């Protein structure tokens, strides 16, 4: 509408500049283009926060969140979890002597056995975690103390690891493989589980030690130097083992070449540093027996046999062993369910409050009183 009126003006107004510029041909008018963009008339959606949109949003969120929360909460509660602290801080605890005597320098292994009782049966696959507390795997200097290209099987990094690994980079003029503080502090307790029959017999429970790391880690991120075929001890011959380790990296799991060296899953799991100072890491899987209807872990007495290699008392740490089943949402996690229920309830409540405020004080028809 505006445009047309301007055009009309254009036609009768003549352009003084057009003749005098001397050049042949028509001189362009300096009139700006009439495009929606340039004239800031782009069609647009102009939402406004009105009662009609805000209140339903609050109620909807309330109505959606509360059921989700309940669902999460129930699911979480159905997960069976058993946790036992075997650090051995108390005098009474079976691992007290180990925790007290053991240090990184000890040569002989210290073992202790921790008895416990499961009240409920654990169905389906049971996952065995170890948990550490007060362990700052997320400390900056710790986190960066690794060489990913060494772990990826890069030959040159193997013998010449990144400077980030200092001071766990070289020992005795030989490169450490795997280098760095993370690898050096690899969790090396051995945990074994035995079922104590009511008659006193101990049955070892088969613990599966593969399938505990992410597929991408195992197959992409971590690779042994020299590929699969080569003899690992040859591949690693120019390196030395991390200071704290008892055995070199190529002896982590001599029984299974697919789980040895850098692609040892215990090692991979450890190398994926935890976000928080209290964490749990998957250790073993107790697979559901395929043929029988008996639960994976039936209620009763068990013993946890610990080869106590990993000292944590120096920094006031705790070591735990956790047995847990999982659901579609992972492990036991009451926080989310409660959070969803709370947020849902609050939103609903806010919706009610806003509704009241809107009805009582709200200016539902405030168009009329705009001055001028």
């Amino acid at each position, binding site marked *: 509408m505006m445009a047309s009126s301007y055009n009309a003006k254009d036609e009768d107004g*003549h*352009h*003084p*500049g057009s*003749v*005098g*510029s001397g*050049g042949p041909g028509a001189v362009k008018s300096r009139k700006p283009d009439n495009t929606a963009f*340039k*004239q800031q008339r*782009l069609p*647009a959606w*102009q*939402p406004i*926060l009105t009662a009609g949109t*805000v209140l339903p949003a*609050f109620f909807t969120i309330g109505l959606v*969140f509360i059921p989700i929360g309940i669902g999460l909460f129930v699911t979480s509660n159905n997960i069976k979890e058993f946790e036992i602290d075997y650090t051995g801080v108390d005098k009474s605890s079976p691992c007290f002597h180990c925790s007290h005597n053991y240090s990184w320098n000890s040569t002989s292994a210290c073992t202790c056995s921790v008895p416990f009782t499961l009240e409920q049966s654990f169905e389906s696959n049971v*996952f065995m975690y170890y948990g550490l507390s*007060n362990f*700052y795997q997320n*400390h*900056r200097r710790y*986190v960066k*103390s690794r060489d*990913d*290209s060494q772990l*990826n099987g*890069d030959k040159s990094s193997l013998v010449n690891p990144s400077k980030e690994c200092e001071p766990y980079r070289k020992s005795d003029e030989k490169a450490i493989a795997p280098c760095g503080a993370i690898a050096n*502090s690899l969790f090396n307790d051995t945990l074994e589980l035995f079922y104590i029959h009511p008659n006193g017999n101990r049955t070892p429970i088969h613990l599966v030690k593969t399938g*505990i*790391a*992410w*597929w*991408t*880690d195992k197959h*992409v*991120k971590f690779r042994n130097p020299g590929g699969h075929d080569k003899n690992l001890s040859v591949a690693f011959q120019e390196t030395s083992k991390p200071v704290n380790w008892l055995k070199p990296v190529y002896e982590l799991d001599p029984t299974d070449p697919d789980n040895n060296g850098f692609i040892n899953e215990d090692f991979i799991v450890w190398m994926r540093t*935890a976000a*928080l100072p209290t964490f749990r*890491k998957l250790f073993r899987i107790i697979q559901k027996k395929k043929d029988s209807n008996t639960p994976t872990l039936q209620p009763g007495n068990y013993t946890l046999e610990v080869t106590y290699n990993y000292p944590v008392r*120096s*920094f006031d740490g705790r070591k735990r062993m956790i047995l*847990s089943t999982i659901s*579609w*949402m*992972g*492990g036991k*996690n009451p*926080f989310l369910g409660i959070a*969803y229920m709370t*947020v849902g309830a609050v939103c609903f409540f*806010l919706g009610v409050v*806003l509704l009241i*405020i809107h009805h009582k004080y*709200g*200016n539902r028809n405030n*168009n009329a*009183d705009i001055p*001028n």
Partner: protein
Amino acid sequence: MNGACFRETLRICRRWPDIMAIWKEDVRVEEERHVRANDREYNERFSYADNRIKTAKYNAFTFLPTNLFEQFQRVANAYFLILLILQLIPEISSLSWFTTIVPLVMVLAITAVKDATDDYFRHKSDQQVNTRQSQVLIKGTLQNEKWMNVRVGDIIKLENNQFVAADLLLLSSSEPYGLCYIETAELDGETNLKVRQALTVTSDLANDVARLADFNAEVICEPPNNKLDKFTGTLYWKDNKYSLDNEKMLLRGCVLRNTEWCFGLVIFAGLQTKLMQNCGSTKFKRTSIDRLMNTLVLWIFGFLICMGIILAIGNTIWEQRVGSEFWAYLQWNKFTSNAIFSGFLTFWSYVIILNTVVPISLYVSVEVLRLGHSYFINWDRRMYYSHKDTPAEARTTTLNEELGQVEFIFSDKTGTLTQNIMVFNKCSINGKTYGDVYDEFGHKVDITEKTPCVDFSFNPLRDRKFRFHDSSLVEAIKLEEPLVQEFFRLLALCHTVMPEERNEGELVYQAQSPDEGALVTAARNFGFVFRSRTPETITVYEMGQPVTYQLLAILDFNNVRKRMSVIVRTPKGQLKLYSKGADTILFDRLDPSNDELMYTTSEHLNEFAGEGLRTLALAYKDLDEDVFDEWMKQLLFASTSLDNREEKLGVLYEEIEQGLMLLGATAIEDKLQEGVPETIACLTLANIKIWVLTGDKLETAMNIGYSCNMLRDDMNEVFIISGHTTLEVQRELRAAKESIMGPSREIFSDGPDTEKTDIYSSDSVFEETIISEYALIINGHSLAHALEADLEQILVDVACLCKTVICCRVTPLQKALVVELIKRHKRAVTLAIGDGANDVSMIKTAHIGVGISGQEGMQAVLSSDYSFAQFRYLQRLLLVHGRWSYHRMCNFLCYFFYKNFAFTLVHFWYGFQCGFSAQTVYDQWFITLFNIVYTSLPVLSMGLFDQDVNEQYSLRYPNLYRPGQLNQLFNKRKFFTCTLHGICTSFILFFIPYGAFISAVRDDGTQISDQQAFAVTIATSLVIVVSVQIGLDTNYWTAVNHFFIWGSLAVYFAILFAMQSDGLFNIFPNQFTFIGTARNSLDQKIVWLVIFLTTVVCIMPMVAVRFIKTDCYPTQTDKVRLLQQATRRQGPQEQNLRRVRRTSSRRSAYAFAHQQGYGELITSGKNMKVTTSSTSTYPLSSPERCPGTRGAPDETTTEAETNNTGFKREFDQNQDVTVEDLEAR
């Protein structure tokens, strides 16, 4: 070509500070200039600047170092450089080097590209200007040379319509008497032609090349300066001295017109020419938001340091209590073994990590936004004036948001509020008024566009643009009423207008003042066509019959006489004196027999003045041959006398202008620009105070005040301050104040000290509550006193209590002082608008300077920040563009700070979980890209396109402008709110995933509570939360917004998966360590549940708060938005146009718009060509003139507009004197 050169001038002037800086370094102060013609060797000794213009800053080799050096001088860039250096220290480095260097390089690159393109165009136009050809006399022959090779002392030949290459001393020309004509539009914007005349000795050289080559005179003159209208120098030649003045100079930038050729001696070249010297330095203006932003950035730095210290202390404590025991797993390096030292290092590490609270992209984004807003102004068709083909132009791109905060407008009058076009509107002849239109019942009819015009077709020589509505006057002419005829004869004879007749009957008048032009044009249309003149005769076609009058004397106008007369001999041999002038002056000189007529006429005059018209009284007298002869002798004698010549002439004029017979009076309308009263009304509604600062007389200014509706009859009181001493002014001001405040507040007028403090605190409250309307009019003398230190406070007080303030008779310097005064006392944003050279100072002083382009000249535009062609566009500039800019910028800043706090402070919370070790939460790539890729475009598109209220509503509800003036949308409180919002968001962003991840595992039992999955979860939540937030902040979702918001999210996920893909990891295993994390965490329901929960918890409280605000305490904007939405649903409505009715009242007014006239020039015949025929006698009449005039008006307006400039310039000169006086004082 013309346009190109003009733009070159603009461009050079913008770059002037740099040029100045370069130039100052290598030129010592020159006290006197010696130039010898045709002697390059001699002149080279002085190393004068050559004629090469160099505005470009860089060349190909110096670009990179120079540009980088310049860029790192900016604080922000230097800061990031320091950060970068810090990051190179491995013990401190908490981020990879690329997280800082990528944004820094991008910012530097963008700026460098911009600088490079600017410089490229400068090079190009330098090149273009420097390679222009001119004919230089070298070794006795004329050779074509490039401009840049022209040296001082060269003689060059110019041809018609060529640009003058350097400042030249005119030697000779093709025209008689060594005259030549130039157009100075480029220089001072005046489109009329000016005459230059060579010395007689040099003009004799003519175009004799051999003699010119032998010309070896030496010129000693002033050093280069910027005074366009002054030049002093002496020419030494053949043992003679000739003094030189500005009338002999052709300045660079002028164009030669109507002159076949001329020769000139180069005096100043290149950067030393007056054009280049005159550009003046542009003061760098910053907006209040800029200043606020700088303060805030400093605060943020402080905040950053505080957080750094807190975390460093935390680190020290942690290292002592926990870390020292943790050594078995995390050995310390030797030099970090001290906990305090570790804390110190941590401090720097955290400074690096948390630096993103002051993102480098902030400054760049703000610049981009402003540039975008400037383009929107340039592109606005509704600020494009088709008659002059001038679009609005944002000449400064850094002030846009301040346009939304203006509280005071200082406006010039002539050319800004008025068109400076005079229209013959009414007249009173022999006691009868003409000009009003009555309907059949005898009621006055308002004259509109549709009112039928009088048909002048009987007159083939009429001006077709002339409009008159009262046909009774034509009837009177046709009836040959003698007095009516005499009236128009007078108008056709008594003036100093020059006629120009291009083709038969196509007359154009060149009048010195637009009033005169209007009067002569009126006479022309009513059948008394002034057709041609010679020094001794005037030929008038009276009703088609040529009548030649002998012009015996012109008794010229000046400011004291306030009248002019001519004495002519009619063909019948009668001697007649015709006089026109101010009514008060003429009425004193009337013959007593006129008393009755005088009474009626003065009533008519009052009536005319009441309508805001400018009036003149006309009278004639029959002269006796003997008396005249005697008088003529005395006149000749007086005019040759050496001392007191003016005085003697004055007495003689007085003597003969006695006993006049009154003919009547004319009334001329000083036409306002289109839409001025409406604009003023609208801006007033927006609570913008408009002050008119004009050099005009009190009466004229008041007239315009009334016709603009700034002054109204229903105002309580109009105070006129016109005291001549400080005491008088003080008394008047106090009286005014008391009468506004009421007698109860008289106490304040005691001591000046108590007054200041008391009034300052109490008035600001009080002034808001005053409902009565007052106006203050103050004239120049009084203003000089009122601006003194002890009176300025009371002046500000009174002025701010008044609705309208008009300052008349002010000098350019005073204009600036008034602006300065308000800037100092009111902390308000000021805007100055003007069109002429006399407005430059105020335009430069005000926060925002607006130049009206295409009216009077280019000087105001050159120094302005914004320019457009019509005053009424100001409304759109402020209420639409300014308001939007402000709104957008504020929203942008709020969101930007929010976003960065939300993003960065997560690290702070994480510090408590990771032993204060400066571990980042996010992937380093995410930190690198967050600000520049993931979140920059949505907020930029909001900052560019958002419209809270559309343009129609912005204009319809001017008080929507209020928040800007009150600084409501972005201030320190707002800043705290949005940073707090950001901090809360960061808290939620960290602690909800924290709670969920304490014991979380994947649904296949493997771990997910590792650092990388945690990072991806928080990063994804963050991106989603800030995207939703920008969605909430965006009021106006164009397709671009949609594209950018959704696009940013998509790009985030795309980059996330790409960065964590196998391929990249295999190439750079150490840089892309997050391999597979996105895949392994984002396929988990629990992760999405966490993200969803986080988003809702972050967003919903804000939604609730905003809803309550708009619902219970809606702002004006909210209301209008609702209304807008409602009307959009109902379909468009016809907008009711605001019509402002002018009111009229009886005011006496007198105006005569010109100064000392052309009279002498006419009678001496100097400005008339002897050789050419009588039809195109006047030099201005040449046909080349009009087409060549850049921005010249179309033919309809030529006559008035071309000529008002001459008058105005002289007027400005008069004012300059006053400025100097003031400064001396």
